[in-house]
């Protein structure tokens, strides 16, 4: 039954593009592709849910057709990530069903509707694959289709550059992943996951380390940990908003999936420094990511950077898990992994919601520049409320899902007090400090976002005339908001099967009592807070509208409000080392600086990795290429000399071998 549902899910995903192209001429059939996609995704959601909560394994094997074993199988981990994909994809599809219709027409709409399911399909392949070939197949297609979706959205010099960087980095990362897989070949010729799992015992330690480092780099590139994050803030903002939602919320998680598969499932316990490496990378990504986010005032780029931050948090969790695993503390490793995996789900939900919110904003206010927004809550109540919930949960505030995973992570840091090694016992608790800082900064960042975009008075006419988005988009956002609250108030629902999931691939794992204790106390807190709030709010308070206090001035205008830039100024001042701003003050006319006609001030922030890390590498390659090009002189006699030289070289080689 479930099996059949799963197969039909896959088939349906493949059908949607065909349907789109068959029906593209027929006006009345507009809704068919979206609804078919929605239907199939709901099926997938059920399949994933069933096998995640009941631990039912599914398998599809196409090996007799394909040149290499091409097998899909769903164990609990795959089911969890499949669930994650569908849980985000359903609202996103609902949202797009009206968003795409409103913003795209003709061929571009058809392309979107046919690439979207393929993109989802490729991600499903990645998380359900049980053989290297299938995994890599999905992995590469995921990049291609997402790039295709970006391309459909428009064409400009900058976009081209960003897409180029995106594809290039993805391909390099994929190469690392391929290498990581291939290192298993000597032990597991078929590269079938089960075989790889068993063959790890035969693999020498040096190889394991190589595999780990390759997997760390490869998946790190996809996940966007600093300094491999360069593509992320470039590629995510330029995609169509629902696609950005999918990329940020889901696609990054497939990298986490791959890393968990390798780091925990295949490789098993390794040296502790693996864990510390991941921990440090996570810490850096977390702090720098959120700092860059605070500096932004383009909403989508801000969200992209905050994805870097959340990936950093997830890596903190995974690193902690690795450390505990290396120290033979499986139960605490379970705790850390719970935190990490749950944060994957949470981030998927609230980041998806935030991107959809951004889509709604751009839909009604036609801009994503925070400085142009303001006071949207009064005009878009549903969107605003959903967005508020999302902001609270990404800031890690209690009673919402973001808090749960961060709390679990804190507790797993605390558990380090039981470690025997000094490094562990100091580094992990200090990581708690890092996490606290990240949490605080995230709260600051999203207080800024919400306060500037949705509260106060509108800063532009577009914001003034903004109005609520159509129903389907609202429903999409509300669904995700509801998910935030549910997980936040009753985490036990997810934690129990999740720890069962971890037990499936982590030897000696067990449900840590912390998880239980949290799910015991959170509902009480929620209850008491709710009761108090309702009680106090129910007390009638007389309310009178009076203009805002303007220090005696006639009236305030929106330009007197604090801007996003101003809001984040103190923090940027304190952490100015993290940003490398190059400021330019332009005084016109130049010849009389004391009587300027205009003074313009620009401050462009580059992440400084591009300048100091990537550009040199690229330059080196290109310069080498140019040098080589000079060898091809065009003079045939030189060519003949090359031949003779090659001959002589080989003869020498022959003598000496």
């Amino acid at each position, binding site marked *: 039954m479930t099996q059949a549902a799963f197969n039909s899910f896959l088939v349906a995903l493949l059908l949607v593009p065909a349907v789109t192209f068959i029906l593209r001429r027929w006006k009345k059939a507009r809704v068919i592709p979206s609804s078919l996609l929605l239907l199939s995704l709901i099926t997938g959601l059920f399949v994933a849910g069933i096998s995640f909560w009941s631990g039912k394994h599914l398998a599809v094997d196409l090996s007799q*057709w394909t040149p290499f074993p091409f097998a899909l199988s769903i164990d609990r981990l795959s089911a969890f990530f499949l669930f994650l994909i569908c849980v985000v994809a359903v609202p996103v599809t609902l949202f797009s069903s009206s968003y795409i219709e409103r913003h795209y027409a003709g061929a571009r709409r058809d392309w979107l509707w046919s690439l979207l399911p393929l993109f989802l399909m490729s991600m499903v392949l990645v998380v359900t694959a049980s053989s290297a070939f299938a995994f*890599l197949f999905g992995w590469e297609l995921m990049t291609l289709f997402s790039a295709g979706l970006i391309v459909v959205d428009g064409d400009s010099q900058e976009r*081209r550059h960003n897409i180029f960087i995106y594809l*290039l980095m993805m391909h390099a990362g994929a190469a690392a992943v391929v290498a990581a897989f*291939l290192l298993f070949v000597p032990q597991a010729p078929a590269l079938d996951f089960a075989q790889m799992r068993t063959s790890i015992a035969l693999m020498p330690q040096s190889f394991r380390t190589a595999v780990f480092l390759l997997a760390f780099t490869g998946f790190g590139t996809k996940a966007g940990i600093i300094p491999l994050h360069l593509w992320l803030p470039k590629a995510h903002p330029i995609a169509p908003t629902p696609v950005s939602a999918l990329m940020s919320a889901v696609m990054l998680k497939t990298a986490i999936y791959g890393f968990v598969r390798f780091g925990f499932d295949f490789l098993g316990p390794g040296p502790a420094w693996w864990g510390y490496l991941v921990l440090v990378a996570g810490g850096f990504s977390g702090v720098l990511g959120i700092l860059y986010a605070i500096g932004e005032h383009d909403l989508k780029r801000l969200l992209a950077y905050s994805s870097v931050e959340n990936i950093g948090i997830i890596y903190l969790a995974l690193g902690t898990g690795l450390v505990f695993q290396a120290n033979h503390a499986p139960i605490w490793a379970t705790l850390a992994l719970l935190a990490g995996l749950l944060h994957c789900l949470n981030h998927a939900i609230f980041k998806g919601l935030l991107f959809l919110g951004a889509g709604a904003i751009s839909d009604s206010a036609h801009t994503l520049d925070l400085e142009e927004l303001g006071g949207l809550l009064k005009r878009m109540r549903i969107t605003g409320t959903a967005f508020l919930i999302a902001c609270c949960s990404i800031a890690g505030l209690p009673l919402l899902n973001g808090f749960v995973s961060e709390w679990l992570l804190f507790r797993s840091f605390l558990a380090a007090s039981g470690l025997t090694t000094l490094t562990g016992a100091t580094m992990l608790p200090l990581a708690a400090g890092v996490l606290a800082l990240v949490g605080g900064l995230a709260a600051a960042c999203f207080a800024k976002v919400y306060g500037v975009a949705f509260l106060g008075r509108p800063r532009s006419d577009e914001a003034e005339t903004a109005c609520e988005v159509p129903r389907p988009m609202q429903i999409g956002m509300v669904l995700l908001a509801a998910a935030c609250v549910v997980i936040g108030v009753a985490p036990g629902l997810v934690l129990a099967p999740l720890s069962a999931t971890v037990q499936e691939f982590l030897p000696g794992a067990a449900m840590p009592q912390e998880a239980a204790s949290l799910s015991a106390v959170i509902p009480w807190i929620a209850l008491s807070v709710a009761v108090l709030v309702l009680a106090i709010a129910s007390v009638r308070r007389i309310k009178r509208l009076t203009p805002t206090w303007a220090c005696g001035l006639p009236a305030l205008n929106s330009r007197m409000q604090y801007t996003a830039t101003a809001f984040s100024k103190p923090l940027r001042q304190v952490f100015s080392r993290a940003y490398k701003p190059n400021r330019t003050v332009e005084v016109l006319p130049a010849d009389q600086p004391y009587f300027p006609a205009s003074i313009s001030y620009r401050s462009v922030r580059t992440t400084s990795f591009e300048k100091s890390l990537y550009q040199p590498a690229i330059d080196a390659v290109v310069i080498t*290429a140019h040098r080589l090009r000079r060898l091809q002189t065009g003079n*045939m006699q030189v060519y003949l000399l*090359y*031949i003779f030289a090659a001959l002589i070289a080989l003869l020498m080689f*022959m003598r000496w071998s």
Partner: protein
Amino acid sequence: MILVFVLLIPLAAAFLVLSCRRPSTVVRAALTAGALELIFIGGAAWSIHAKGVLQAGRYLRADGLTSFFLINLGLISALVLVYSAGYMRHVPEGRFSSLRWFYGLVFLFLFTMVAVYLSANLGMMWIFVEATTLASALLVGFYNTEGSVEAGWKYLIVCTVGIAFALFGTIVFYLAAVKSGVNPESALDWSSLMSAAPGLAGRRELLKLAFVFVAIGYGTKIGFVPMHSWLPDAHAEAPSPISAMLSAVLLNCAMYALLRFDAITSHAIGAWFSHTLLLIFGGLSVAVASLLMIVQRDLKRLLAYSSIEHLGIVAIGIGVGGALGVYGALLHTFNHSIAKTLLFFTAGNIRENLGTLRMERIHGMTRSLPWTGGSLLLGALALAGLPPFGLFVSEFMIFMAAFSAAHYFVAFLMLVAISVVFGALLYHFQRMLTGEPEKPSVQTKLQAFEFATIGICAVCLLVLGLHIPATLAALLRGAAAVIQ
């Protein structure tokens, strides 16, 4: 008997075509001859599959390896003929450059290559490999422009010199065989050399010397770095169908010759020496070609360098050896020839429509020429070795072979090179596909022929990426069995 037909049809066709006067009859005759040749090749392959080895006289033999390469040749040449029917509409009239000369030379070219495949005798094989150069030189210089004349001359001289070394290598083989008591009559006959290979072990030094010369010689023809210098010129300046033939058939032909020698050498003195040579050449080609692809300006030159890179990958596949390695390498030759045919045909379309192949002058093809742009994109993805295209599969096989044979360095080099290639292709093709299209200078209506062929190639690539047909698999296994 069938072999004789396979061999003689192109020759006859050449003279037939040359005797025709009216272009339409020329084209018709060419197409029929091509179809006939394809049919007979199919028949030959079938009976090889049935009987194992076909022998006709002392000098003609066909085994599994032959049939695989013959099929490759047959398919590609058929596609090329069909495409040319559409493409070669307006040709400059001149000595050796008229429509009938075009087809005549194409068939001579085919004849020489078929002869290479069919000749049982290594000396024979050498003669015909050299003959391929002579037959195709005029085709390279077909347009009689500055560039094509220069390219033709370089092609002629460089390849002849290179091949001369191959002759020397062949002689040394012969010498080694004769010295170790093989009957001089059959001392150049491949199968008898194979059977006598263990006996040759005594002549270790001679064999190594011989293989070095053969590798240099045929390597020149394959286009291994640093003997590759003729290749970009020839590919860029020849008419697009011919470029397709050079890159998709001729290089495989030379590779075939090298494979024969490699088989003997590795049987006689162990695989280490010859395979190390192949790995060196392969690695060098892959590295250099991938870097040079970044700085190309002409589309067909770019494609030519990518041919060098892919033949390098094939060499690596043979070099790492093992069943999977050889299988993958052969599959890769097949995939590569299809992908390259597709791309050179596309390049032909681009030249027809925009009148140039300078990549910095081409923009916005997705809008101005959506179909051509699409096929360009598709071919690029295939060349970059991305799924779901055939080259992904064969490259993955070669990688697996390399890793299971613990050739980590070469494998990592290849991985890096492939990433560089991806970057180069992306960089160039993105600029060609996107942006604002200029007004197409020469807007000509494209023929059904051209898109039919391109479509066939695309479908083949897709299918091979998802599923290897049983017949092809059998063919490959047979071929691999011969040289294993």
